[in-house]
């Protein structure tokens, strides 16, 4: 029976000082299977992966590859044994050609030198099996992330050939790219590869996987065939409790008063086409759209990260300057960016310094916030947002993603903004913190703050938005208001294929 099992891990233990990261975990991957590995942050899935690929040394248990006991000492060793890994951030080199990336270390040689022609030909032929017909002599950086991802997969499969581990491969892809990727995964599966697939997107998991294994707190919860489980059960397993209110849709009936902010013909060439947008006090405007559609670009243009080159912005009928983040902040704007690590946190500074940063920048360097006031602010927000650990002097980089997100929220709340832009506020954070942030959004808007929230999780948008703007191909294409807001309507608007933008403004403006 074990004959068809490609990779069998039994009773894997991994301890970090003081923490049991994995305890007696079993994991079995069949050849020709796509096996989803699920769990909250800290559940142990990346630890398990790292034990399989040799990035960590396991403390106990056995790993059998095709019935043979293996002990990979690092990822390269695992690769030689047949286990290849592709990470979310494409771990290839943009300054090398596509062919060099695929062939580095094993370039075909002729007369003691690299046979560049053969190297380009081989890699081109290899990629064409994946439906990519590209010039492999060009730099990798001249291709989109989606193409780079496929190149990384082709490379990993070519090098290892038995097991392919994909760690959040779809996180930075748009839906067309995801579709292409899944097509490739199915082909690889048919070729007999075993694929481990880690993703936060449950619908993708249901779409692509054959088997689902759920981990929680370093323990195996269950491993089931995908068609024998539904999403509610899956979430229950992952969380250990039922999801509450957050799954239901609430339809607000927000009476739109005088707009607080109005943007007319606001846009930036090559980023987002000019759009009109009004936002009332206490209103939550959701932005839906695929990655690269122009949703983040909308936020960045509003906040002055990329200065707009057309249109005007008015705050209660007064024209305002939004050419830089500083100008936007002066108008009491706030912005929690999508890329928390690179655009949000100041890693080495303490939680306290991260919280007061925007407020201090606003006051200017010459007027420092007294330490006692800093401490009071931090104490307040650490309590109000339930930031953990509670020590304000801890460097923020040591916090989990969800807590970092809360610190950045606190940074803006401390400046008392009237308009807050949140770009993917719940991306990459665990489900518990997820629910808290959604509650926070609702309570902020109850207090009269206006919000613009970008999210790829449509349920979430439906739950808190008074209005949803749909963005497609750098254009605001539809606006869905009040009771019309539903995932179906949003999906229809995103998927609509009209050449002419159907920019319909419904409701009062």
């Amino acid at each position, binding site marked *: 029976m074990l004959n068809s099992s490609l990779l069998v891990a039994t009773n894997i233990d991994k301890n970090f000082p003081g923490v049991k990261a994995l305890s007696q975990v079993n994991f079995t991957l069949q050849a020709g299977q796509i096996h989803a590995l699920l769990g909250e942050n800290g559940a142990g899935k990346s630890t398990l992966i790292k034990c399989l690929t040799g990035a960590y040394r396991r403390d106990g248990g056995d790993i059998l590859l095709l019935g043979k006991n293996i002990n990979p000492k690092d990822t390269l060793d695992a690769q030689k044994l047949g286990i290849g890994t592709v990470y979310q951030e494409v771990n290839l080199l943009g300054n090398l050609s596509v062919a060099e990336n695929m062939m580095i270390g094993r370039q075909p040689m002729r007369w003691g030198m690299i046979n560049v022609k053969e190297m380009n030909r081989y890699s081109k032929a290899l990629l064409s099996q994946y439906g990519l017909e590209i010039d492999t002599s060009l730099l990798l950086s001249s291709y989109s992330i989606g193409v780079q991802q496929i190149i990384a997969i082709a490379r990993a499969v070519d090098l290892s050939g038995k097991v392919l581990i994909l760690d959040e491969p779809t996180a930075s892809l748009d839906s067309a790219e995801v579709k292409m990727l899944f097509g490739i995964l199915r082909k690889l599966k048919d070729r007999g590869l075993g694929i481990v697939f880690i993703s936060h997107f449950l619908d993708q998991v249901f779409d692509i996987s054959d088997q689902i294994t759920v981990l929680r707190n370093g323990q195996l919860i269950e491993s089931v065939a995908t068609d024998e489980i539904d999403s509610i059960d899956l979430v229950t397993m992952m969380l250990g409790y039922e999801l509450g209110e957050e799954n239901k849709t609430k339809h607000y009936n927000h009476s739109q008063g005088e707009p607080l902010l109005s943007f007319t013909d606001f846009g930036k060439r090559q980023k987002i086409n000019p759009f009109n947008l009004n936002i009332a006090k206490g209103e939550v405007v959701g932005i839906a759209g695929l990655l690269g559609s122009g949703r983040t670009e909308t936020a960045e243009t509003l906040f002055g990260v990329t200065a707009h080159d057309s249109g005007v912005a008015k705050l209660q009928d007064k024209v305002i300057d939004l050419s830089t*983040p500083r100008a936007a902040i002066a108008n009491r704007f706030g912005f929690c960016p999508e890329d928390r690590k690179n*655009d*949000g946190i100041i890693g080495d*500074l303490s939680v306290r310094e991260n919280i007061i*940063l925007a407020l201090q*920048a606003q006051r200017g360097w*010459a007027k420092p916030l007294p330490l006692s006031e800093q401490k009071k602010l931090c104490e307040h927000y650490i309590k109000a947002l339930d930031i953990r650990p509670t020590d304000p002097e801890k460097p923020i980089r040591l916090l989990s993603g969800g807590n970092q997100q809360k610190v950045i929220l606190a940074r803006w709340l401390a400046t008392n903004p009237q308009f807050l832009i949140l770009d993917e506020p719940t991306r990459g954070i665990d489900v518990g913190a997820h629910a808290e942030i959604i509650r926070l959004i609702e309570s902020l808007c109850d207090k009269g703050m206006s919000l613009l929230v970008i999210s790829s999780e449509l349920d979430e948008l439906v739950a808190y938005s008074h209005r949803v703007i749909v963005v497609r191909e750098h254009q605001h294409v539809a606006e869905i208001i009040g009771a019309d807001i539903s995932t179906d309507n949003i999906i229809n608007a995103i998927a609509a294929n009209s050449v002419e933008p159907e920019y319909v403004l419904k409701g009062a403006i």
Partner: protein
Amino acid sequence: MNSLKRLAPQLITLAVIILLNYLVFPDFFNIKIANGKFYGSLIDVLNRGAPVALLAIGMTLVIATKGIDLSVGAMMAICGAVAASTVDSGGSVYLALSLALLAGVICGAWNGVLVAFLNIQPIISTLILMVAGRGIAQLITKGAILTFTDPGLIFIGSGSVFSIPTPILIWIFAGISVTFIVRKTALGMLIEAIGINQRASSFSGINARVLLIMVYVVSGLCAAMAGTIAAADIRGADANNSGLWLELDAILAVVIGGTSLLGGRFTLIGSLIGAMIIQSINTGILLSGFPPEFNLIIKAAIIVIVLIIQSPALKAHYQTYRDTKKPPEPAPAPSSRTTS
């Protein structure tokens, strides 16, 4: 208390080197007054260390922003030349000082604009002035060593106030005032913020450009003071040799002082101690009667030892050793080695 603990390795290093100096030269701590001025080896360390200490002040701030200023030596030459040529052509010492400082501000602003507005990497931006600066200085001195006899300017290099040599007073005063300004305002934190993550800092409303230009201007000002002291000391502006390789000493002082070349958290006091460590080494070699040929070798050896002690690789080993004894903290993001 806390900062004392953080600077312990630097203070211990300094103490050990001074002790070594004392062992090879028992008169090291002897200080006497002659011509109304303190004399002695210890004073000599403080006095000779003035240019590097001054440069280290500006360099610390620049390095904290994840930058580096390779042009400080060349700026010293330019500013020294400006001061010398001003008194040479009949200007007062005050005019000479003002023009030298102005030259420092202009040079610093040039570097700052390249870094802040054109987004050119600091090591590259300041390389330009490092290469061209000595040419400019020679242009001012017309290729010769420009000597002067103005007593006011000479006072900057070899005069004294309350028996303390002027250069010592200048660097200590500069060190204290910059530390005070940086730590009593929010400047220090904002500089650290842009050094750690400039993009996120800009998103939070920090005016990174102004701060960047500011730190390069401070570096230019420090170089101007150092250049004036160096010129006043030899009573002449030597465009070829003034401040030659001092940018390297200044960077070393900062690194030895405990500020990472990768930017972020900085300590000015650490850098000043670093400058004194370097100068103690120089003086010690001189005093020990070692043939001066060995200066550079010994200096290199000591740099290597100090740096190995501070090496991130060794620190990581020490960390894992400590972690096996203590409960761990959540794993920090893997820090990638960046090249400067």
